């Protein structure tokens, strides 16, 4: 088991180094590192001196290691716009994105799993057919359109929920949260649904097909034959067995949540990292793009690693077979 964990960890580091390489190439060759530090007013001599000081004349692999070493210490240079350190910019935006992503993931998992189980147990019912056919439309709807339509209905027509921003946030020193105020929570509803809807549909379809598969198994028939209640059959026997595929896909979808957060944040003017990134793309703010790529790459690799490792805690067969391999 230790060996497997180390192996996965090693692979993750390799992927991360590759992503960092791309991020470095963008930073070094598409952008201009000197500009990110000095701004436009510097003289040629100052620039040359800084180039030397930054090691831009060094061999390329040394520059790459230098980039990595700085990245580990969260040093990504300065943004072209406003000349603020990129790390500071990202740090100030990160809580907004994480709170949004977390809320929508929880929403997607809870509703997705619940609806998946419901539609598997009640095959052919009117509600099931309704859920299934509307999920087909849901998959075809672009995220931004869902967001805009939600705003139209709930903000413009009904005037129930705010259409942009985070509402009132509470500053905890190292974190700003919208969870602690009424307007913060209200502001979270529409963006979280927009972001989570597509993932919810996926999780629902997956849960449903896995549930149908599991319900055909003999241990389910035995459990029924032994007189266990439907509740026990579904939740004691079936649910744990559908968890593995649901966690895999659900976990991997968490990556997409981060990517789609860019879109959602733009629709709702949510002050997160995604909005920062889209502005960086628009204004060709290379250091911010480079750092964002590295950040997202890190998040993806971390998620994949956690998903991989979570199998060991769910499936006793896997746990034991790895132990045996080691012995």
């Amino acid at each position, binding site marked *: 088991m230790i060996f497997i964990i180390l192996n996965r960890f090693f692979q993750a580091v390799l992927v991360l180094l590759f992503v960092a390489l791309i991020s470095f190439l963008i930073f070094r060759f598409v952008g201009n590192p000197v500009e990110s530090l000095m701004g436009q007013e510097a003289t040629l001599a100052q620039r040359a001196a800084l180039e030397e000081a930054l090691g831009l004349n060094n061999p390329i692999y040394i520059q790459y290691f230098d980039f990595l070493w700085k990245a580990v210490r969260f040093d990504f240079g300065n943004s072209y716009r406003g000349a603020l350190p990129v790390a500071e910019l990202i740090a100030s935006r990160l809580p907004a994105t994480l709170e949004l992503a977390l809320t929508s993931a929880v929403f997607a998992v809870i509703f997705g799993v619940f609806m998946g189980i419901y539609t598997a147990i009640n095959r052919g019912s009117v509600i099931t057919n309704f859920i299934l056919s509307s999920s087909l439309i849901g998959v075809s709807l672009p995220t931004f359109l869902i967001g805009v339509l939600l705003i139209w209905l709930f903000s413009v027509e009904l005037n129930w929920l705010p259409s942009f921003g985070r509402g009132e946030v509470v500053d905890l020193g190292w974190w700003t949260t919208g969870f602690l105020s009424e307007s913060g929570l209200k502001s979270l509803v529409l963006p979280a649904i927009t972001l989570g809807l597509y993932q919810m549909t996926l999780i629902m379809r997956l849960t449903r097909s896995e549930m149908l598969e599991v319900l055909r*198994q*003999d*241990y389910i*028939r*035995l*459990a*029924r*034959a*032994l*007189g*266990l*209640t439907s509740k*026990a059959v579904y939740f*004691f*026997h079936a649910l*744990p*067995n559908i968890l593995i595929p649901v966690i895999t896909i659900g976990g991997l979808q968490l990556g997409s949540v981060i990517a789609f957060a860019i879109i959602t944040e733009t629709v709702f003017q949510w002050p997160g990292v995604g909005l920062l990134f889209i502005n960086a793309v628009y204004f060709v703010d290379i250091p911010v793009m480079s750092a964002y790529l590295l950040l997202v790459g890190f998040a993806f690799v971390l998620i994949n690693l956690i998903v991989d490792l979570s199998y060991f805690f*769910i*499936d*006793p*067969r896997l746990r*034991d077979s790895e132990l045996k391999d080691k012995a």
Partner: protein
Amino acid sequence: MDEPLLEIKDLSVSLKKRNTISVAVDCLSLNLYPSEILGLVGESGAGKSMTGSAILGLIESPLYISAGTITLHGQSIVEAPEHIRGSKISMIFQDPLVSLNPLKTIGEQLVKTIKTHFNISKAEALERGKRLLSDVGIDPERIDAYPHTFSGGMRQRVVIALALAPDPDLIIADEPTTALDVSVQAQILNLLKRLCIERGTSIILITHDMGVISETTDRVAVLYSGRLVEIGETSDVLQHPKHPYTAGLVASTPNIDPHSFHKKLFQIPGTMPDINDVPNGCAFHPRCEHASNICQTQKPPLFNARASCWLLETPGETL
């Protein structure tokens, strides 16, 4: 004789597909008495397992019970079979490798089953679970182990413990040893038989193996194409079969007898018909060497409460 424990009368199970209805179990009647072991034998597709599932109400659409009654202690159980599942009748399936939930320890599965039927604390349920495990010959200390750490035979013992846990009056064992090694089969059968005799539990043993029937059961019912063809005391049926199909089954059973070792095994010619294509009259007549005109047109009734064959119509005539 005692009052029957279980009475099945004219049970039919049908399969509805689009516009056609085919019959999987056809007008089956049989009784089961307390503490009795009844064998249900036939080729695969003869409707044995379907009958077992029908008793527990475990058949699902497109299959459905189209006619007949099933009563337990004189009470009908067709309408609400979930009330008797486990507590009165439980079931054992063929493949122990897939009969246990792989993600739950055997203790968790035992406790869940016990607590479903008895209003006792978790500790008491665990205690009972351990007793059951030692009854079926498994070290009670292994109660916290996961199913995959047991061999096939051991898992079937766990399944037997599960089936006995609600203290049922009847266990339906559907090919309980088919998936096991030959050396383990006898152990499991003897265990099941001993435990049921000790507790006064009846068994319906579903199998295609005449050897298992002869060693284990008190009475045997032979099914062919969803119909009951012969029923009676096991030794009587095996030694003096009254239906040509039973005779064929007995004759085609391998027999480890040094004198007959080199004899070629008997084969019943042909195959059992598909349920969508059951012949008129006696379903067995295309394969029967004794078939006459009446066999092709009219279904034989059960003669002398023993066999459904027109040969028995004329007293004295026999195979």
